[in-house]
């Protein structure tokens, strides 16, 4: 194999490191997305016998938005673990998942990150995060009646 072909091979099977911001994201829907990257199913070269999965670095995992009472049941790591294919490759794929509770990531991991995954849903902004001036100047649609009591 010539040098050019060899480098082509390295490029094709190069491992990507994806960063995923889990802030305000549903962990179960996120797991559906993350499992594709861990197994390499997002690539056109995917083959079950070739080891072409990517690393996924999840940050802000403490700020996930769990639906209903799921807080008491499951967490993100377990959600991904459950969504992955049930075979001998599952532990190896889980080893490529790196979860961090805040947006602080160790430098030796952050330097590997080569792309970022898009979040599934927009992050809502709380009223106390909007600057005071913008809140005051927001257009008024209607006035409260004089005798209306806001408790």
């Amino acid at each position: 194999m010539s040098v050019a072909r060899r480098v082509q091979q390295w490029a094709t099977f190069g491992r990507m490191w994806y960063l995923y911001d889990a802030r305000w994201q549903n962990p179960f829907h996120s797991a559906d997305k993350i499992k594709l990257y861990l197994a390499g199913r997002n690539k056109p070269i995917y083959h079950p016998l070739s080891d072409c999965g990517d690393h996924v670095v999840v940050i802000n995992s403490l700020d996930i938005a769990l639906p209903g009472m799921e807080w008491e049941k499951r967490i993100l790591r377990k959600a991904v673990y459950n969504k992955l294919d049930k075979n001998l490759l599952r532990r190896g794929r889980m080893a490529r998942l790196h979860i961090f509770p805040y947006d602080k990531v160790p430098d030796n991991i952050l330097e590997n990150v080569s792309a970022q995954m898009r979040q599934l849903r927009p992050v809502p902004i709380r009223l106390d995060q909007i600057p005071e001036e913008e809140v005051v100047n927001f257009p008024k649609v209607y006035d409260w009646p004089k005798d209306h009591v806001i408790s």
Partner: protein
Amino acid sequence: MTSQTWNRFWGSTFVKAPLQNGVGRYVQQLQRITFKFCKTHGGSRGMRDFIEKDLIEFARMNPGVVVYLKPRRHRSSCLKAEYLNGGEEYISAHKQSSEEIKKWVEYLRTQSGYSVERLRKYQHTDRPSIQGPWTPWMHRDQCINIAEYPQEELSCAVKREKTATQELLEKSKIFVGVNNSS
């Protein structure tokens, strides 16, 4: 027979030719062919006919092939071919007519010397892709190569439609503009 048994004993290969034989030039791969036969037995009669009628013509047409005749008493007739790559092939010609043997000789002459195996694919190309194989960076925005991570713009979800707040703000701006002009 299961495919596993087949693969264990007969093997499998891809379509191949020795040193791209046949592209631009053709090199005869058959080097030696030995005709083994008996001079008296009936089982070798077809072989004796072939030797009388067609063998001289065959040797004249293929000057690169060494032809051996090996008479042996009271043994059945056979063909033994040896190839440039060291491959050998043995074919029993017992009780075969001279026409059949002629076909077998033609078969041995045109072989490459590789053993006959199941083909895993029926086509082969040295250059499977003109555009080049896929890489993780193909069809990606090149800004990801120099971006500082984490980055808000690359992370946020794709916005599909405006929120009610945004629409209200836009409408109020138009309303204010109309009021100011009038």
